[in-house]
């Protein structure tokens, strides 16, 4: 089936080359990082995780977009999602590749990476994160590919795929929960030490993931004969806005806990993030995120505005940027600031860090592009 990805118009090849160039530049930068060490990043003794790990945190959520469509489709026989399912599953694959790539480039000694498997340590959440990410990748690969293979021969997918689909739904919840547990089980990191961390991960994932998927579907509609279906779009917008409301509610719960209790450890990170103490560019980003989140809700809550197809993409873009700043950048930097000595350490990603991250994203998007191309070619093939 992969051969269908080798036939495309100039726009397709232009996109593929662009991704390859970004991967090339970032790949060369990674070689530079391997030679010099992580000293080329903005990381420090006090802020020991940064931009790379932020991408893991965010893209885990995007990977989950699949479940918000797979669940209604399989559990509630909601047929409107029929066309979107395959896009969702393949987006999950790309997103997980970005997650795993972000972990690899973050390692100081990536050539020893297999030590995680050679010396399995069940008490480490990172070990479980490795297990659930690889498992989810494999599940989506098998489900998506087999479904497509049978579709090509105008056949229903084999029966053994269904249990895997059900498993993937439960598994999707595990990838967020486990990734949230990376943070929320650490003593002495006040911003992360909260029971709503995992629920927040789920809520922000279930709005950001489908939002990106819907945007991608809109682009795919522009460049191919693919049609998501009006009902599917409306249903997704509803899912997105509910999840976003829960996400913001949970964040406000954090704010209440910190400021009503008045406990300094809980207050300091939020004060720093919003510029009340040691303000820097992070505060600008957080306020931008606040404004964008408010804008997206104003556009998405009233049904009249939500169903306005001209406004919808803008609302979704605003939502994606807002959740990215909050869950990617804010969560990471806020967790390390103040540091264990109640001091404020500055962190900003460096250019090499951004170039390497771009390459990781390009690799994920490259895989998604190829998979989408295959899926759409087969759809056109069987329709003809």
């Amino acid at each position, binding site marked *: 089936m992969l051969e269908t990805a080798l036939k495309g118009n100039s726009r397709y090849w232009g996109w593929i080359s662009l991704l390859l160039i970004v991967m090339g530049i970032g790949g060369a930068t990674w070689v530079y990082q391997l030679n010099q060490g992580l000293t080329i990043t903005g990381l420090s*003794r006090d802020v020991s995780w940064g931009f790379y790990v932020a991408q893991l945190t965010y893209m885990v959520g995007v990977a989950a977009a699949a479940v918000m469509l797979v669940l209604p489709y399989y559990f509630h026989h909601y047929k409107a999602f029929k066309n979107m399912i395959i896009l969702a599953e393949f987006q999950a694959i790309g997103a997980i590749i970005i997650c795993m790539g972000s972990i690899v480039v973050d390692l*100081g000694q*990536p050539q020893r*990476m297999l030590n995680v498997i050679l010396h399995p340590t069940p008490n480490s959440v990172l070990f479980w994160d490795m297990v659930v990410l690889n498992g989810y990748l494999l599940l989506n690969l098998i489900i998506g590919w087999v479904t497509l293979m049978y579709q090509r021969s105008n056949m229903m997918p084999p029966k053994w795929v269904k249990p895997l689909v059900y498993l993937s739904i439960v598994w999707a919840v595990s990838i967020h929960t486990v990734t949230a547990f990376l943070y929320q089980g*650490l003593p002495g*990191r006040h911003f992360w030490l909260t029971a709503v961390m995992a629920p927040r991960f789920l809520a922000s994932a279930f709005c950001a993931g489908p939002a990106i998927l819907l945007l991608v579907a809109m682009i795919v509609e522009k460049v191919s004969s693919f049609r998501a279906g009006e009902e599917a779009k409306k249903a997704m917008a509803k899912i997105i806005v509910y999840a976003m409301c829960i996400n913001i509610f949970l964040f406000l719960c954090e704010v209440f806990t910190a400021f009503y209790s008045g406990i300094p450890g809980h207050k300091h990170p939020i004060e720093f993030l919003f510029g009340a103490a040691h303000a820097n560019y992070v505060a600008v980003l957080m306020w931008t995120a606040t404004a964008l989140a408010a804008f997206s809700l104003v556009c998405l809550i009233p049904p009249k505005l939500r169903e306005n197809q001209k406004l919808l993409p803008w609302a979704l873009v605003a939502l994606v940027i807002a959740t990215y700043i909050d869950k990617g950048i804010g969560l990471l930097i806020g967790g390390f600031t103040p540091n264990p*000595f109640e*001091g404020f350490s500055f962190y900003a990603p460096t250019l090499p860090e951004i170039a390497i991250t771009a390459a990781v994203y390009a690799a994920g998007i490259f895989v998604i592009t190829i998979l989408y191309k295959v899926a759409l070619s087969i759809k056109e093939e069987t329709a003809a």
Partner: protein
Amino acid sequence: MQKTRRTFLKYAGVSVLGLAAMPAVKAAASYVPHQVHEKPDPRELHAKRWAMVIDTRRLNSDEDMKPLIDACHKEHNVPKIDGPQEVKWLWTDTMHAVFPEQSGEFQHAELEHKNFLLLCNHCYNPPCVRVCPTKATFKLQNGITMMDMHRCIGCRFCMAACPYGARSFNFKNPRPFLDEAAQNPEYPTRMRGVVEKCTFCSERLEKGQKPACVEASKGALLFGDLADPNSEVRKALKENYSIVRKPGLGTQPSVYYII
């Protein structure tokens, strides 16, 4: 013709395989588990739970503490790197930084502006060991939280988990930052990309010596077994008021500060 060539190739293949396997077989035959030829030093110091008591009354100025830090960093070839990517095993900071949850609004003037020593707490219940995905950091039976710098993958999860900021990461190759003349050939240097920290001088204890900082402290640091009620450290803790860093987190530090 074809048949003979085939048999020839078959025999040639088998003999090449045999030649290649020879060194491996030889190496396997000569392998002796290294526990057998490595006997513990009879001078080794033993304890169930090594602990340190820092008598802060005797460590007041930088001149009091610098020799301790120098002794430690020299012993372990700790590089001198300036800036936020520094590596340190033993260092000092102010009251508010060391005991953030134990300082009231108004403090004893002397304590307020005083520096205290910081190092790995060798917690009884260490979060760093809990999170390490490769067992590169682990507990020894004597209570020391150890580091295997050859197994560490440099994920820095332990640095996020340590509430005491005791861990340093080698962001770059540390070797150029060592004073070549002052290097200690007894202790290995590190490579970039691994985490390191104080090990309570585990390598010195094995040879019957107390930690380098304790030796250099002229009695201001006490070192002993927390599990032994008659040890020097337990006696000191019985007779003096002491605190530990961030007791509320349940990590049970093995480094005590007499105030």
